[in-house]
Each structure stands twice: as C-alpha cells, then as structure tokens.
C-alpha cells in the first residue's frame, strides 16, 4: 500500500502523506524512498508547476523519523549514511525549481520539520495540536537531515539554537512570530490556501520577505553578534547538562560551522556528529528510555483484560494542605476534571483552593493557556468544608496528615459519603496501604497513589494496590495518573514503595559521610558529577528534614539495622532546621534560594570538615548502596519489571537518564562487578553494604535484569 497520494489539479500537485495502518506519519526508510521516487517523477512531469505537501492524518503532519531504525544502526558509518540520505533529500527539495509548499496541521517534528524547512513556503494551522520542533537532542542526537543548517538560516542563530539545543517545540503562533512558518490559517482551509500559495509562487508573484528586529540584526546578522550567541548557548548547555550529554554541543558545532563556514561544511559536521552520537552510549540509553516511556503510556497497570479503568469526571480531594492543593491544582490543569477540595475548616479550604488555583494561574501567566481556557479550567475547581458533591465523585484522593488513625478515620467517613463504586486513593509515602484499607467497608476500592512534591512538576506517580485492591481500582488510578501527565508505575505495598526505598540507604549514607567529616558540598558535588540533578543533602533540604526523619524511621523499623539513620537529621531538627521551607537545613538559604553550605551544621555535629574521602569513594558508597537496594527490592517484586524500576528511579528522583537507571546500570557494570565492589565496601565500612542475595545469585549465574537484550 502506498503512503503517498498525489492529485494534480491545474498545475499543482498535492502530495498527501498518510502512512497506512499507522496512527501517525513517520519518515521510515520505506516512506522516504517512496517519497523520493514520487518527487523525481513530479519534478519531471511537465504538467506540474508547483507542489504541496500535506498530511492525511488528523493530528500529525509528520511526527519525525522512525526511531526504531536508529536502534538498528550497527555502526557509525551506517548512522552517518542515514544522516547523509536525509540531507540529500532536503537539499533536493530545497533546490527544486518548482516551488514546494508545506501545509502543516498537527505535530511537525524532527525529520518532519526538516522536510518542511526544505520547502519554499510553510503554512500552519492555528490549532493547539500544531507543534513544530526538532526534539533530536532529547534522544541524544542532533537534527541530522539538514535541520542544523536550514533552521538558523530561516529564523536566525539565536532562535534556532533555542529550539535545537533544548529540543523544545513551539506552537503555531510562536512559529509565525519566529518566521518559522509564513502564515497561519484555520484547519478547514489549509489545503486550499496551500494550493493557492503554490500557484502564486509558480506565477512568481510571491517574494519571500524576512524581518529582523534590532536584536536580530545585532545578534544574528553579523559575525560578532553570533559569537556572543554561540558563547551564551554553550554556557547554558554546560550548566544544564553538567557535561554529561554530548548532543547539544555537537548540534551547536554543526550550526556554527554551517553559519560561519558555509552550508557544505555545516552539513559535513552535521552528519559526522550524527554518526558519532547515534551509536554512542548516551543516545542508546535515551532512546531506550523513550521506548520505555512510550510503553508505560500504553500500559494500563493491570494484567491484560483483567479490568477497564472507570471514567473519572469528578474527583474529591480530602485534605487541602500543601499536597492536597497541589494534587487538586494539577488535576484541574492537566486532567481537566472537576475537583472538589475538602478540608474540615473553611479557611483551610480557601487557602487550598487558592494554592491549587495558583498552579493553574501560572500556566495562564506563562501564556500556556488563554484567558478563556483559564476561566473554564478554573471553574472546574471548587472547595468545601463538607462532603457536598462527593456523592458524584468517581475517585477520591486523600491527602491528609501522615497518620494511620487519621487516614483510617477519613476513609471510614468518606465511605459513607460516596457512591459504592467510587475509588479511594490515599496519598502516603510511609503507611502501608493494606493497613489503611484494613477497616474499610469496600477495601477493593482502596489503593495508594504516591505523588511526589511539588506535584505539578514531579513526573512520577506510584500506584500501590493493597492486599484487597481490585484490578479496576488499579486501572482507574493508573489511567487517571496518566491524565494528570504522570509517568505511572504500579508498585507493591512494601514500606517505602520503590522510590523512597531506594533513596533510604542513599540518604542515610550521605549522613554517614557527613558525620565522618566530609564537607556538605563535597557530598552533593560527587552526586551531581555522577549525573543527579541535585545532591542528596540538597534533596533532603528540599523534601524537608521532618518528612525525611519520619520516612527514615519507618524504613528502619521495616528493614532493620542496615537502614539505621546516622542521627544527622535528628541533630538538625533539634536545632529547628527543617530544610529549605524553614530557611535552613544543610544549606543556608537567602530569599528561598540555596546560598552556601551552613558551617553551623558542622559545629552542631561536632565535626571538622576535611576532604579526606575522595570523590570516587563518596560516589561509590552512595551509588552502590542505592544499586544494592534496588536489587533487593527487585527480589521482593516491588516493581513489575526492570523497566518500571528504572523509569521510577529516573522520573522519581532524577537518577541520571544517560545511565539508563539503576538496574540498567547493574546490567552494564555486570552483577559480578557490583557484588565485588559491595563486598569491598562491606569490609571497609560495615555490613550495610552486604550485597543483596539476588544480586549475588545473578553474579553467579550471569543473569541480568533486562533479559531481552544482547
């Protein structure tokens, strides 16, 4: 079956791209070949004076390249060749004497945008689904089909680098402002306007016009200004990636070479770098994560066919404190459901509604939504000191104080107010779901939804079935979590679940290192160097030491001596240091921003900081303990798969994505090496480093967490 359909009318050939049996258009090798053949024919066809490229899919123009093809690239040469093929294609389009118009509705990403860039005129629809971008760096790659050359030539170095280096898409209105598209039209007339434009251009009545502001002229149009742009971009990339990600710098190089030394030189850098990146480890990891994320989006959290998610139109949120309000605000903003935020005191409700609304309002002030969308979404949110409206609720999220008796009481109360089929999710990080559900009248509807703070920003959600939870409840919570924009993993009801389980020994060990005299910033720096966004002590300050203390105690009780907290947090709390929220923790804060490691902490702990322990040792002690705990949790089936475990670690606490996740890292290092390292650490620092039995078993058998590869 053909992916392209051509209709020639009055000299205009309209090419409609509609990949058979696929939800979206991607430029697979087959599609590319077919397009090239077609293009050559039309070029030679005397009836054809101009071409229009349009998509037959409802919500995509072209979503990009076929990423599966990247994983099949077995050598740098092959990858380079792939890039060159793309470059040749866009060059032929760009050099065509017959004008080509791209009619863009829906996502236009990666190779799709590169194709559009090669056209001579771009028309986009003023529709929220229309997004244009070059997201390649997010997969550890660069736009390898001429994107690094064409985009800066069209919209200037500054704007092009903004888009390429962060892999960020822009919406249609922004694209018009940037000059990325030439006009915006309603989807209903896209095709006819595109044909008209093609005809006009064939008649040579149309001249492209370019506008540049003063800043554009100063920065983009002269070599000196561009140097400033390159330097700024480089600095920003390094501060964002910590030097762990080669792709943005490679893309910068390709853009720069192209602009300063000509298109031809730029294209060579572009495909050479593409070749290096595509077979590099970072890109391989990022592509794997992309596939895992895609797979998780399709995973409904229960065994296939066991239950369907219930419709959720209205949720009740009990507890309008910090977490409850953020859950309510995120539910309104992302899932766009009705939310009733409930607390016992009407003043607390008002506070909570205000905080929830602030989350939505931020999207409006950042122009992510219009005034009218804001008004509509805002009206979804309401608060009450009673249970009015709960009788209609499909899902209740309880986010009250972390205390078993209180949570049970709330559950019992809610059960008298809601429909018999309403699902009750408790947001807890430390209390077993089965305990909370123990007194429930309908425990099959009770489960855990562990949100991470700040809810509106943290991408992960842990869904925890209790002993009696029905698959329907799980499927509903998973589906709703996805609607809230979360990556959702289903986790067993074991203390700490997955994320806090892995963090417990890691955070403890940071305390041990501190007690031994390691400076606060040395500990954190070792971990940011490893690739974490923040170090463990900064993380503790963010989470709040009171919260961390409580969690630590629960973990100690559940798992015994190896998770004995080193007492650092107790000492800081005794000094009224709760972390950032109280203005001081391990660090001193000025105006809410981390300022410097607080020397008072050393005095408090009676230590003299000295860089006696090497950064390598710091890294080993922290990381291997975390890996070991992950292996132990895998022994207990805390997550359903290594994929879920790695996604949880990456999205839950920022485990470095380019390392693929803790389980992937164990596989990469080899279980035997991990066990050896742990044994060494055990003999030096004590039994808390004793390797997990399962890990030892894997070391002996040569088994891996990911059995499907290599």
């Amino acid at each position, binding site marked *: 079956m053909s992916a392209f359909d051509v209709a020639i009318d009055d000299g205009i050939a309209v090419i409609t791209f509609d990949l058979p049996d696929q939800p979206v258009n991607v430029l697979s090798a087959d599609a590319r070949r077919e397009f090239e053949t077609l293009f050559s024919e039309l070029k030679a066809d005397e009836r054809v004076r101009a071409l229009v490229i349009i998509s037959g899919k409802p919500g995509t123009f072209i979503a990009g390249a076929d990423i599966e093809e990247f994983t099949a690239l077995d050598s740098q040469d092959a990858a380079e060749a792939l890039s060159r093929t793309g470059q040749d294609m866009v060059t032929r389009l760009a050099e065509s004497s017959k004008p080509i118009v791209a009619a863009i509705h829906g996502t236009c990403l990666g190779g799709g945008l590169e194709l559009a860039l090669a056209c001579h005129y771009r028309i986009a629809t003023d529709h929220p689904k229309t997004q244009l971008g070059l997201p390649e760096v997010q997969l550890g790659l660069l736009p390898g089909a001429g994107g690094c050359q064409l985009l800066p030539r069209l919209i200037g170095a500054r704007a092009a680098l903004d888009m390429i280096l962060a892999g960020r898409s822009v919406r249609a209105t922004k694209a018009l402002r940037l000059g990325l598209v030439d006009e915006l039209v309603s989807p209903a007339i896209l095709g006819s306007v595109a044909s008209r434009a093609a005809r006009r251009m064939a008649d040579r009545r149309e001249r492209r016009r370019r506008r540049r502001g003063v800043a554009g002229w100063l920065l983009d149009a002269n070599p000196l200004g561009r140097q400033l742009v390159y330097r700024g971009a480089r600095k920003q990339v390094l501060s964002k990636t910590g030097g762990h990600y080669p792709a943005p710098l490679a893309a910068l190089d390709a853009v720069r070479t192209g602009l300063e030394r000509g298109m031809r030189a730029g294209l060579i850098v572009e495909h050479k770098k593409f070749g290096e990146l595509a077979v590099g480890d970072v890109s391989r990891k990022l592509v794997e994560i992309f596939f895992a994320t895609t797979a998780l989006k399709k995973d409904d959290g229960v065994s296939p066919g066991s239950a369907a998610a219930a419709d959720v139109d209205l949720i009740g949120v009990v507890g309008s404190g910090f977490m409850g309000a953020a859950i309510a605000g995120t539910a309104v903003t992302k899932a766009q459901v*009705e939310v*009733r935020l409930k607390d016992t005191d*009407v*003043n607390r*409700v*008002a*506070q909570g*509604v*205000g905080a929830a*609304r602030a989350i939505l309002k931020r999207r409006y002030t950042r122009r992510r939504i219009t005034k009218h969308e804001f008004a*509509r*979404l805002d*009206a*979804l949110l*309401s*608060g*009450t*000191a009673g249970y*009015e*409206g709960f*009788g*209609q609720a499909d899902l209740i999220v309880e986010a009250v104080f972390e205390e078993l008796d209180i949570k049970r009481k709330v559950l019992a109360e809610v059960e008298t107010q809601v429909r018999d089929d309403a699902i009750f999710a408790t947001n807890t990080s430390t209390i077993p779901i089965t305990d909370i559900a123990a007194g429930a009248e309908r425990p099959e509807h009770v489960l855990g939804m562990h949100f991470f703070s700040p809810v509106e920003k943290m991408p992960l959600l842990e869904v925890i079935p209790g002993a009696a939870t029905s698959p329907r409840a799980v499927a509903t919570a998973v589906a709703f979590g996805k609607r809230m924009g979360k990556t959702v993993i289903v986790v067993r009801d074991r203390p700490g679940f997955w994320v806090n389980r892995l963090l417990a020994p890691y955070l403890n060990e940071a305390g041990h290192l501190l007690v031994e005299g390691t400076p606060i910033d040395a500990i954190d720096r070792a971990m940011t160097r490893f690739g974490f966004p923040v170090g463990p002590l900064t993380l503790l300050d963010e989470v709040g030491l009171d919260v961390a203390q409580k969690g630590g105690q629960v973990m100690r009780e559940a798992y015994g001596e190896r998770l004995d907290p080193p007492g650092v947090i107790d000492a800081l709390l005794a000094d009224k240091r709760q972390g950032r929220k109280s203005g001081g923790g391990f660090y001193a804060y000025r105006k809410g921003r981390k300022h410097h490691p607080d020397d008072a902490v050393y005095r408090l702990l009676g230590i003299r900081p000295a860089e006696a322990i090497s950064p390598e040792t710091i890294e080993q002690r922290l990381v291997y303990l975390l890996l070991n705990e992950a292996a132990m949790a895998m022994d207990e089936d805390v997550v359903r798969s290594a994929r879920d475990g790695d996604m949880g670690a990456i999205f839950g606490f920022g485990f470095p994505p380019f390392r693929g996740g803790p389980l992937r890292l164990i596989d990469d290092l080899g279980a035997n090496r991990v066990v050896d390292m742990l044994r060494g650490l055990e003999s030096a620092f004590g039994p808390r480093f004793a390797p997990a039995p399962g890990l030892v078993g894997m070391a002996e058998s040569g088994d891996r967490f990911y059995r499907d590869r290599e």
Partner: protein
Amino acid sequence: MPTAPNGRRVAVINGLRTPFAKAGTLLRNVPPVDLARHVARELLYRTELRGKEVDEVIFGQVVPSVLTPNVAREVSLLPQFPRTVPAFSLNRACASAAQAVTAGYDQIVLGHADVVVAGGVESLSQVPILHSRRFSEILVSASKARSFAARLGAVLKTRPRDLIPITPAIAEPSTGESMGQSAEKMAKENGISREAQDQYALMSHQRAAAATADGRLTAEIVPWFREDSGGDVIATDNGIRPDTSLEALADLRPVFDRRYGSVTAGNSSPLTDGASAVVLMAEETAAALGYTPGTFIRSYAVSAVDPGWQLLMGPVFAVPQALDRAGIGWQDVDVFEIHEAFAAQVLSNEQAWGSREWAQRLGRTAPVGRVDWDKTNLAGGSIAIGHPFGATGARLVTTLTNTMIERDAQFGLISICAQGGMGFAMVLERR
C-alpha cells in the same frame, strides 16, 4: 388551581445563595457573572445533581453587564454542565429571580423541562457606567475613520462636558422619581411614622442576626473565597447589624427629604451584591432521581400599578390574586416572606392588606389579611440581609422553603414589590 391543569407539579428541591455584601464592600471586585456561576455550581454539588440532568438555566438580573448580557448562559456554560443546556436571562425588576423561578415552573408544567436551575444575580458595585451620547458618537466615528488625521479630527471634537459619565439611577424612567422618594411619598400619604419604620428595621436586623447566629441563614449561604485578599472567607451577610438600636436608627438623617422626611439609610434596604439560585424539578422527576421535594410551587401572580401613584403597592394586588389562584385564604398561610425594600413600603402594604377600604378597592368583601409578625420574615428581611435586585426572589424562595420544612408548614407566601409599580406573589406548599 392547586395544581396545573395537566397535573404536573413542580418541586423546589434546594436553594442557595452567596453571602450578600453591601455594594462597594467585600464583593466589589467580583463580576456578577462570577457570583452567579459560583452559586449555581455549588448548588449542583450540594444537591448532588449532575449538570447533564438540567434542561434549562434561567437567571434574573436587573442591571446586566454589557459584556455578559445573558448571564444565565454564562452559568450554563460552566464546565459542570454539558454545553447543550439552553439558558435565558430576564428582568422583572426586584422580582427577577422570583420570575426566573416561575418561568422555570412554567417550563416544567408545560412539559418542556423536567429540571431547571433558576436564580438571579446583581452587582451594584459593578453597574455599567455609560459615556455621554455625544462622546459615544465621537468614539464610533473615530473607530470608523480610515486615516489617522480623520481619527484625530473626530477625537478633537470632544468637549469636557462630553466626558461626564452617565450612571444608571435607581429612578423611574417614567416619572423621574427615585425609589427612595417613592417610599417617602408612601410614608407620608399612608401616615407611616419614622418611629414605626425604625422599629420595623430594628426587628429585621435582630431577626437576621439571630438567624445568622443559629445557622438558619448561614445554611443557605455558600461561602465566597476572596481572591483579592489572600483567600479570606466570606460566609455571612455583612449588612446585618446585631448591635443596632432604636436610638442608633433614630440618629440617622432622612435621605430623600431632609426636612420632613422619615426614610433613612437605616430603614431602607441597602444597595447589595449577591446571587442566589434554586433547583426546580417536576415531581415525578424528583421521585425518579431520588430527591425529596422541599416545597411545591402552588401558584403565583404578578400585578402592576401606576408608577406615578404609590410605586411599591403592587403586592397589595398580587397577593390576593395568588391566594385566589392557590384556592386558599390568607388565614391558611403558615409562613410569610415579604420583601423589604423600605420599612415604609412593608408597613404601607400591611396597612392596605388589612384595610376594609382597600378590600373595596380590590373588589373583595373582606380585607386580604392581617400580617402576623410571628409568622412573617422570621429570619429578617432585605433591610438587614441586603437586596441584590436580581437575586432577592430566589433568596425568598429558599428561605421560605427551609422555614416550611423546619416548621412542617403546609402553605407559605412570598410578596415582592418591584420597580415600575409591579407586585409579585407566590404560594408554596409543603405536600
């Protein structure tokens, strides 16, 4: 006419209102459409009613915003409703929300609807203020001008006095008489003393204060969360003065006739912001959806008199008509809610209902009835609670329904005087 000819009965299921706030105070920054949407949304939740069950939304508003002239449609475009619920707004002056309720009743009786949300809203803090006619013309011609010079030329025609804005007055367009002047005239012509008016106002405040304290009034109020002051909660009406006294009221100077007058700010209803709404259902729909009706609407009547005469005497005509239509007499009514525009108006209405002379004018053999204040306005009235023109009617339906449930009263009566010389009356029944 105890029930409609086709046997359809209409139940009042539930009612709710925002706190009523004196204009220019707590709710001054809230557009009326937001008040209306807030009360309707909360009413749905408190009734545990999904918007998809609602067939029509009707709201009253006396001074509509130029930007949202059909406030009811903005209500039915709340995300809690499907977008397919039709809605209209109406104006029966101070009886607008009551008219919205009976319009809903009509729709249900006709079989055009089974469930209606009816209410009203007013913001007297946010009345539209108009440009002068001449300035409007200048603006229009400037906007049509094709060149900058022409635009400038149009604008340069402006004279300082063109810039004086026009504020809507609470005055009769047909007579130019303000509402207060009308009340003043009624006080004089009917011999209502200053002391009687102040005494009446005192009762209104004391009763409203008591009903707020014991929760009868707060039960019908959905709190408003102020966004403009860091989430303060308004849960009660701010016009009620629990500590006022006859002396304090007597100290106030008459507003409309400074020398010989008796109508003061203390014995009049204040300009007020607020919204109210009720859920109406056909009796069988209520049964099918599992609702217990609070009351049923038994009858209603509207009248009008010459605005140049005594403007607020309309209820004298409407009440006996509604009672006749209900097939009951004044003595059968257990609870009354009389809208208090002015103490002078309430007392004038009372006088007329009780008088033989008036009975003759109404063509009746006996007076309509004698007001028993132990059955009337038990939670105070508009003088204390406030009077957002478009919203008062649904407040009265709500309060009366709640009182009738509380007292298990069979019949209740609402009386409302309205601008333009109109009067409105409605009879509710419990069973």
